[in-house]
């Protein structure tokens, strides 16, 4: 997968980037939030709705069979993309947050009891905190936290102590605030050595890196479609067959049952057991097209491109603004993704975002659904610029130029 990629052609695949507002081009630097969509994804979804839309797993007519094949085809693409052993281990959810809730509610309720320990880290997204808080309130489980180093990496100096007696280690593969890439395989090994399950929030990782759930040795992995050039409305839970098989269902209803009687029900086989109701059919088709699109570029190429952009943006911003800009997270691009959260000359991130918006530079301002981490950073908000396959050096330059405007207004 080391073929040369024409990145300007990649950019041209995303029609929204042709949009001009007030005569200026769009500089989209909010992909850690949600990514833009290429023509192939938009076309796959609209073509399906125009020419082949039908229910799945229910009806006997040909078009329904075709729709079922397309839907299951998308599942197989996702399986291959993350190197999962079986397609039926890939469960489609509404989003990654639902996948995370599914694990806590189904596996958690069946396996965790008062006093049991779940280990999280200080850099988790709320989606990997709140479901555990909810279970703690219900079950009296204990939450422990892996702290961070000053450079924004996980402080693993007392890992075995923290994991001692734990039942679960649930952690992000890449921080959505700091960009930090965590040592996933080593953490999974440490969890297993302690007799704990390893759950990986891979929302920020899967869209940007080669993902291999088997070489990680993970037990559960969650991610979302909309951050990897696919549509919103679909997320993925991958889990080891043995675990998924033993778990009680999450939501009840159609599609997830083998039989229903007046006095009870039996569950369907995997993955239907966890896909109650009509699933996101069109979105699955779109996600399949997104997987094909990313596979054609090659995830190793994506990673190389983003490492280059990360280095370029870090250098450009620090050379230009020196001590006036504080960029959170590791300096080494080897252990960080293309996510740059920053503080600039004491100007509130909301105001920075407002000023950048006048130049059509789109960044996120806020707490990034990671309030515990924000408190550790001593900020109640940061501005965050995040890069993806359709960004290039000119976007980093546009960010640096637009920041000047913030100084002008606030007279700093």
């Amino acid at each position, binding site marked *: 997968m080391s073929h040369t990629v024409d990145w300007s052609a990649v950019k041209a695949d995303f029609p929204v980037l042709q949009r001009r*507002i007030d005569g200026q081009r769009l500089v989209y630097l909010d992909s850690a939030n949600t990514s833009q969509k290429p023509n192939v994804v938009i076309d796959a979804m609209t073509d399906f709705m125009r020419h082949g839309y039908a229910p799945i797993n229910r009806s006997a007519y040909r078009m329904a069979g075709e729709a079922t094949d397309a839907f299951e085809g998308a599942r197989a693409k996702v399986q291959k993309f993350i190197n999962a052993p079986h397609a039926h281990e890939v469960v489609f959810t509404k989003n990654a947050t639902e996948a995370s809730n599914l694990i806590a509610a189904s596996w958690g309720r069946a396996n965790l009891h008062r006093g049991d320990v779940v280990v999280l880290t200080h850099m988790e997204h709320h989606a990997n905190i709140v479901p555990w808080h909810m279970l703690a309130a219900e079950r009296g489980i204990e939450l422990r936290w892996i702290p961070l180093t000053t450079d924004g990496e996980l402080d693993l100096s007392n890992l075995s102590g923290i994991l001692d007696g734990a039942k679960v280690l649930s952690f992000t593969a890449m921080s959505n605030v700091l960009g930090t890439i965590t040592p996933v395989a080593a953490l999974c090994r440490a969890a297993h050595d302690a007799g704990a399950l390893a759950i990986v929030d891979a929302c920020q990782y899967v869209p940007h890196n080669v993902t291999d759930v088997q070489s990680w040795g993970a037990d559960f992995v969650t991610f979302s479609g909309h951050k990897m050039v696919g549509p919103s409305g679909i997320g993925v839970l991958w889990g080891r067959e043995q675990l998924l098989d033993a778990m009680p269902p999450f939501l009840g209803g159609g599609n997830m049952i083998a039989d229903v009687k007046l006095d009870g029900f039996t569950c369907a086989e995997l993955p239907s057991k966890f896909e109650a109701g009509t699933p996101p059919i069109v979105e699955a088709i779109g996600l399949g097209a997104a997987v094909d699109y990313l596979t054609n570029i090659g995830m190793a190429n994506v990673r190389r491109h983003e490492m280059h952009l990360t280095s370029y943006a870090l250098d450009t911003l620090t050379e230009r603004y020196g001590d006036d800009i504080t960029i959170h997270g590791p300096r080494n691009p080897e252990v960080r993704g293309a996510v740059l959260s920053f503080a600039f000359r004491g100007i509130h991130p*909301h105001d920075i975002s407002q000023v950048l918006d*006048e130049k059509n530079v789109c960044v996120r301002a806020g707490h990034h659904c990671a309030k515990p981490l924000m408190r550790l950073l001593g900020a109640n*908000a940061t501005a965050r610029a995040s890069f993806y396959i359709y960004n290039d050096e000119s976007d980093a330059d546009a960010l640096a130029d637009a920041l000047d405007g913030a100084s002008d*207004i*606030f007279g700093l």
Partner: protein
Amino acid sequence: MPGLEDLYREIILDHYRSPRNRGELPPPANKAEGHNPLCGDEITVFVQVDGDVVSDVKVSGQGCSISQSSASMMSQAIKGKSLDEVRALVHRFKVMMSIEEDADDAAQPAVKLGDLEALQGVVKFPVRIKCATLAWNTLVEALES
């Protein structure tokens, strides 16, 4: 797109740089905390009510230029006012922010927004309306607490 000069008026930046009535009031002053869950801004409003009059007010917390200047100007505008006048002011402000219909209630005392009118431009930036109203919603909570 409306220009940034509509938003960042000089008086707003002045209140942002030098916020008035910063600090806290000890009990029995009323107190309420407000959060803007979208951006993480946090604000605490303390109000001392003596009889029918807001005799003192303090604001603490952090936030963007719009939320901080709105809080600062609000604190100046309500200090020394009667509760009826404060309620009328809250209403006038929310009408300006286009989140309340003008009640045109003859029973309400006539109040002037004064400096607060500088925040009128915020309406042109709908995502910032929540920033401007954070202090006001927190004030209402504090008065009810």
